[in-house]
């Protein structure tokens, strides 16, 4: 239990959050879940051992997943980021080259592969 790597999952749809959480926990990660950017930032401010943030784009609240990612990138540059959305990535939103984007629904083992590589 001591060495479980920590992943932050940000997703406003409870079923999908449950799915992502189980998938990561079964793969041996410790999962912190957040239903919006505000909750995610609370985790980020308290924990200093988060390796990867896996976030949705459209969420309730003032900050969407892309803005959250930009925020995390500047305040916690060591944290790797993976983004997913049911919408195609709108023009104008530029993602850094090292932030992969997955269209929803995603194949869970492909996400796992990416996150495992990032957390290693």
């Amino acid at each position, binding site marked *: 239990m001591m060495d479980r790597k920590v992943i932050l999952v940000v997703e406003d749809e409870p*079923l*999908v959050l449950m799915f992502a959480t189980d998938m990561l926990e079964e793969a041996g990660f410790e999962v912190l879940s957040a239903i919006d950017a505000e909750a995610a930032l609370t985790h980020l401010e308290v924990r200093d051992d988060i390796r990867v943030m896996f976030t949705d784009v459209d969420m309730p609240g003032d900050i969407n997943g892309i803005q959250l990612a930009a925020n995390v990138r500047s305040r916690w540059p060591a944290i790797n980021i993976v983004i997913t959305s*049911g919408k195609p990535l709108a023009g104008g939103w530029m993602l850094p080259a090292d932030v992969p984007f997955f269209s*929803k*629904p995603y*194949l869970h083992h492909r996400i796992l592969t990416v996150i495992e590589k990032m957390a290693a």
Partner: protein
Amino acid sequence: MMNLDAAESARRRQEALADLLIMDTPSEQSFDDLAFIAAEACDVPIALITLLDADRQWFKARYGVKTSETPIEQSVCRLEIERGTFLDIADLTADERTRENPLVTKKRGFRSYAGAPLILRSGIVVGRICVIDLKPRKDGLAESDKAMLEALARQASEQLELRRSAKLSHQLTGLQTALVDIGETIRRSQNTKEMASSTAAIVGQTLHASRVGFGVVDEASDTIDVLAEWTTAELGSLEGKHRLGDFGLEQGIAIEPVVIADTGTPSPDTRAPETGIRMTAVSIVEMPVRDAGQTIALLFVHSAQRRYWTAEEVSFLRSVADRLEAGVARHRAEQQQGILNGEISHRLKNMLSMVQAIASQTLRGTTQQDAFQSFEQRLLALSAAHDSLLESQWVEADLRNVAQTVASTIGFDNRIVMDGPPVALGPRAAFALSLIIHELLTNAFKYGALSSSEGFVTLTWTASNAASGGELTVIWCEHGGPPSSEPSRKGFGSRLIRAGLVGAGGVDIRYEPSGLTAELKAPLARLAAG
């Protein structure tokens, strides 16, 4: 001092002249002949067909005179023109109205004059046909010569009318052709800017204008944004944002069509010359483009020369504005449809994510993990087909695009070589293809070419054009894997493949030693159907 009636008749004469489309045109035989006959018959050295404009008299035909026009002050023809009767001045040096006229006082100046009015069918007098002698005529023109000159005047007037009809019908044909072109251009356009720019070019060339533009009006910010424009070198560009006031428009005041022949002449309404951008052109037409009762844009046509706009030209521009209006409405509807489709798609994909999550939770902890993985992949194949369809607003998807999206979603896009022409699939065929490609991929990964590291797949397709209707043939061919053999048990995947692209079979699967080959055939007409 002209009295008001004279001023009014001068204004009506100018309009009628402009409407004749004759001013400053080259000489024409039919008018030259009339001047020649007049001079010969009256036995004088000079005969003219004079048209009386605002500031000049211009000669449509001249016999014995070199100059083509003079200032209006030097015109003898203009005297008593409002009366519309014959003018006979036996000695120009004796008449107080003409004796100071430079044409009379000059060396070898004019001495006697006789002119018959040119009266149009509308009753408006536009000028005279006149004969001029260099010596005085004691008793004026003979009655018979007068009668003859009046007959020639009637001929000239009739000629003016016929000429106008011919010109106008020619112009009308040009305008109608342009309108058809514009309609076509607007229908084909993808967005408002493209529509405006090609329409402006056609209008500019058709009307021989100097500048034609399309500006989007925003009442709230008091601006007009000139999106697209067509110009000649004569006038500069107006592209970009301007204040409504610069265009002579006022916030909150309905924009009406404006037709101005000469911006330097005080308008009858405001009695003031134009200002702002209108002043950069000499002659202008502005046509509002309305939508739901509001002016959303302005079509403007500018000319660097003073010009009269015929009723036909103005009505042409009105029709152009109507067509632009329909175009703007269509583009807006399409844009809204696009947004709506995007929103529906977003919800659908979130729904698929939830279905995926529910299936995962339902099968959690059971021994069904393989089943869940198959389910998840099939769900993603459907989702991939949906992505391809969304690109064309859910009407059709390109075969290659569907196959590629499925392959890259599942993760084998680098091991499939694709070759074939563009083929449009309707939604049903796109979904069927996505599931079939997925099953073939999965099978190839488990038992076929993709199970070995050197193996690969070629996916080729051809569309035939038979008389009985075209047919699509898709061939999936595996290479470099182990020899294939028919499975003993036919599962769901195999049934999905055998249902074919349109659910009616047409599938031939061969288990060759070199690898599996699947041939799928379907009528093109069925594939395109929704």
